[in-house]
Structure formats: C-alpha cells, structure tokens
C-alpha cells in the first residue's frame, strides 16, 4: 500500500498487519526483515576494476547510501554483506575465506563482476574460477565491469532476500548442510 506525505514524498510499503490508533501488530519476521533490509552494512572487498565502479556507485551520481548502505564496514565482524568485487586469484582465496568466516550471522554475499562470479575472461592457472568454489554466494552481478545501475540492482535483490528471510533460517538443517558443503564449520 503506497502512501504519500503531505509534501508529496512517497513512503515505502508497510508490511501486512493490524493497525489501530497507537499500535501496529504484525509478525516479527516482517518487522525484522524490513529493518534489516534498509540498513545493510556492506564490506567492500574490492580487488580490481570492479572496485572502481563500486567507488563510482558510492559517489554522488549513483548513490548507494540511499539504500541504507551509508556506513561501509571494513571489519568483517561488523558487516552484513560481503561484496566481492574483482578478480580473486588463487593466492587471495584463503584470505577471502578467512574474511567470510569472520563475519557474524546473518551474512550475505554479493559477487560483483564476471571475474568473481566465474573467473571472467581470465581462464588462467592463477585465477580462481569463481568465488562460489570457496564460499556460498547469494546474488551474482554479471558484467565486466557492471554498470553502477547493475550493482544497485544486485543490492536490491539482496534486499529482497533479506526482507523475506525466515528468522530461523541460519539454524536450519538446510543451511548447515550448505556450509558443510564448503567445509565451513
């Protein structure tokens, strides 16, 4: 349900629930999802050219801070979203894995660019052919480098995932099996 304020600014959609004077009753999942999706703190793991496009996305022209990602966290312990941008070489693989393991649940991974998704144009002996060989990935953004609009689209898809995620997902057997597949405890 779209609403507008008196000055004509469009408000976001409210979750479904029972509304009355001074209270709004809805399910906890919806509220937590809405809060989380609008305040994702990304960890920009920028290695090469896609990193420069990310810097352009954070700039004033294509502002990523509108989506709540104003505070970039370079410490994995305080980050929600790991944005892997650029080529990951085999030498860098263990470092990426260590950064992923240091992140606290709930965490999401966005793989930006062709090199991070699948090795890209570098089908060579020294490049890891896709980061999903070592960590689980939620959204892939193709492109070489992707335009800032595409990166924002990727972040919006992550927002969709964050909004609709069940609160119990990180304890479920399915998720544990996924992590076991990658050898993450």
């Amino acid at each position, binding site marked *: 349900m779209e609403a507008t304020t008196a000055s004509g600014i469009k408000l976001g959609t409210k979750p479904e629930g029972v509304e009355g004077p001074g209270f709004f009753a809805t399910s906890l999942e919806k509220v937590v999802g809405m809060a989380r999706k609008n305040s994702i703190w990304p960890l920009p*793991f920028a*290695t*090469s*050219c896609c990193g*420069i*496009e990310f*810097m*352009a996305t954070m*700039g*004033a*022209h294509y502002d990523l801070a509108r989506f709540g990602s104003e505070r*970039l966290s*370079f410490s994995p312990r305080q980050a929600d979203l790991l944005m892997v941008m*650029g*080529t990951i*070489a085999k*030498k*860098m693989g263990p*470092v990426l894995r260590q*950064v992923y393991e240091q992140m606290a649940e709930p965490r999401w991974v966005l793989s930006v660019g062709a090199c991070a998704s699948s090795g890209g*144009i*570098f089908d*060579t*002996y*020294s*490049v890891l052919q896709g980061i999903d060989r070592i960590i689980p990935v939620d959204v892939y953004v193709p492109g*070489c*480098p992707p*335009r800032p609009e595409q990166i924002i689209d990727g972040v919006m898809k992550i927002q969709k995932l964050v909004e609709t995620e069940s609160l119990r997902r990180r304890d479920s057997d399915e998720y544990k099996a996924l992590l076991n597949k990658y050898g993450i405890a």
Partner: protein
Amino acid sequence: MEVKQPATDQFYQPREKQYTYLNLGPTHPATHGIFQNVLKMDGEIIVEATPTIGYIHRAFEKLAERRPFYQITPITDRMNYCSAPINNFGWHMTVEKLLGVEIPKRVQYLRVIIMELARITDHLVCNAVIGVDTGALTGFVYMFQQRELVYEIYEEICGARLTSNIGRIGGFEREWSPKTWEKIHRFLKEFPLVLKEFEDLLNRNRIFMDRTIGCGGITAERALNYSFSGVNLRAAGVDYDVRVAKPYSSYEDFEFVIPVGKNGDVYDRFMVRQEEMWQSLSIIRQAIEKMPEGPFHAKVPDFYLPPKEEVYNNMEALIYHFKIVMGETDIPKGEVYHCVEGGNGELGFYLISDGGRTPFRLHMRRPCFIYYQAYPEMIKGSMLSDAILTMSSMNVIAGELDA
C-alpha cells in the same frame, strides 16, 4: 663542585629491544588495491617492511600468447584500469609500429584528446585518495562526479565506461558524433571550476601541508636507480617524460610544460599531479583548435574490420571480416618495443612475433611494479600513518602491479 652522576648501572639492566610485527594485510581500507606489507615496528616507527604482491596475478603475459592482436586490447585495459585508454592506445601503437602503418594526423590528434582525458581521470583518483587518507573526504565526492563526465565521453565513442577497449588498430571504429564534441566542450567548461575548488581546499591548507611535506620522500639518485618514471620521478626532480623524450602520436605539435618537484615527498607528488591536470586541459584545447580534417582510420585491411555496408556487398570485404574475426590473419615477423607515458610512468610493450596468428612473447613494462620496490626504503623510519599516505600518493594500482 663536581657533579655526581646518578648511580644506575648496577641495578639497571637495559632490556632487549622488542619489535612488533604488524600485518598491513591484503584487505585493508587504506591500501587501495590488494598488496600486503609486514611491518616490523618499534612502537609507532617503522623499522623494516616486507611487501608481498601477486594477490591479483592474472597471467597477462601468458594470456597474450593465446590471443590475436585485437583480443589483447581488452586485457591491456585491465592493467591500469583508472586510465584504460592510454593502455589501449599504447598497445595499438606497438602493433602499428610492427606493421609499419602510417596513421593519419586526425587520428593522432583524436587519440591525444582521449589520452589526456584518461590522464586527468587517473590523477583525479590519486589526488582525491590522498585527500581521503588525510581525512578530507569532500574532495573525493566532487572528483568522482567529474569522472562521470569523462565516462560519458568514453561511452559515446566506444560504448564502455571504465575498461574501454577503445579504438582499433589503425584508428577508430567510426567518426565521433556531434554529441561527443558537445560533451567534451561541456567538460572543458565545467571541470576547471571544480578543479579550482579542489585546489582551494587542499593546496595551501595548513593541515594538509603539515601532514604531507617531508613525508615519504626519495632523492633523485635513488629514484633513478630504482627506475622510477612518471609523476614519482618528476616529483623527485628529474624531468623525464616520454611525451617529450620520444614523442608519439603527434605530441611534438603541442606546447606544454612538465612540472617538476624538489623533494619527492607526498606534497610534491600531489602538486605535480595537480599541475599536470591543468597541462592536460591545455593540450586538449590545443588539439581541438588545431584538429585537421581527414580519415578516421588508416588503411590496414588485415586488421581493421571493414564497414558493414561493404561486408554485405563486397566479397573481398567479407573475406577480410571473416579472417579478422576468426583470428586467422598472419602477423609479420618482428621484434618491437614501444612506450607511452601512462598515468604512472613509462608503460612499455615489447612484442615478439614469429609469424603465427598470436604473439610469440608479449612483455609489458609496468611502471607500478618497478617503482613499488622502493616502498620499503621510502617508509623506513616514518610512522604508520605516513606509510599509508606514501602508498596512496605513489598511485599503486593493483592491476598494473601484478598483471
């Protein structure tokens, strides 16, 4: 009266010096790019630094042995990705030198305009990042807005923003549209005002000057011994610029000044880059004024895709098109070295061809790789925050470092 010295020795045992080892790791917010430094520190002073690189090694030199010439252009893009057109044109000029092709004057002037625009964007990133590392975040946001204007110009010509793959062997794909010229004129009108604002923020700023003067300096003799080139060498006092020493693409027709520093410290590099941006603007204006008429590409039928009207109507053009796209054109034998003035220094391409369809050996002389060796020497004895500043002022770009 004799002054008695305090009795200390029998009870005072000097302790062994203990050093801390700090890992300025591959993922660090302030190192712009991924390279690692293990710093041996005595408190806050750095005693020794051991750099480790190779975290983004993509084997360009081996990759180039598998690809025909125009397929190598996209990988040269990804070396110094802040000023990708310079890399592209450097590669195209190397190939044209091997083939012995005469490039029309108009193409050379157009190439000069694009290369100077690319140089401006490279210096913008570096200077904005020096500002960010000292805490001045506003400059960064303003400068990236100006880069968007240049990206739009690239998009009009070749379709891509950052990794441009611009131009062809022999010239350009098509004549530049009037919209391109409109955007270039808009840039030339708006950019000097913003650059002046940026200068007013930082050039004579007391805090910035105190922070950067005397930090991370290197003498001219050491810089030459380390084979520095580009801005880092000019800031140390040596006026070596490939555009003047070995002019390519009609640079001898333009009048410009090479700014030279004195101490080789962070402030000198910042100021040299600022002045080079003004000089680049002047070169672009001169090129637009003196632009000659003529074709937008040279006659290189073996390597330049024929226009589509001819491909659909002319048998010969169809065969050429097929051969070029499938990469079945044979390259003449030869060994050639060509260098251009990249954003970081002398960017050279050494091409050995043995007559096959791909190069036998392509070696890229990457300026970043060569001058980063001097980093441990430059930061010895300085504090940790100065080390970060030195690294960002050297404009180390990870793609060029590792290739």
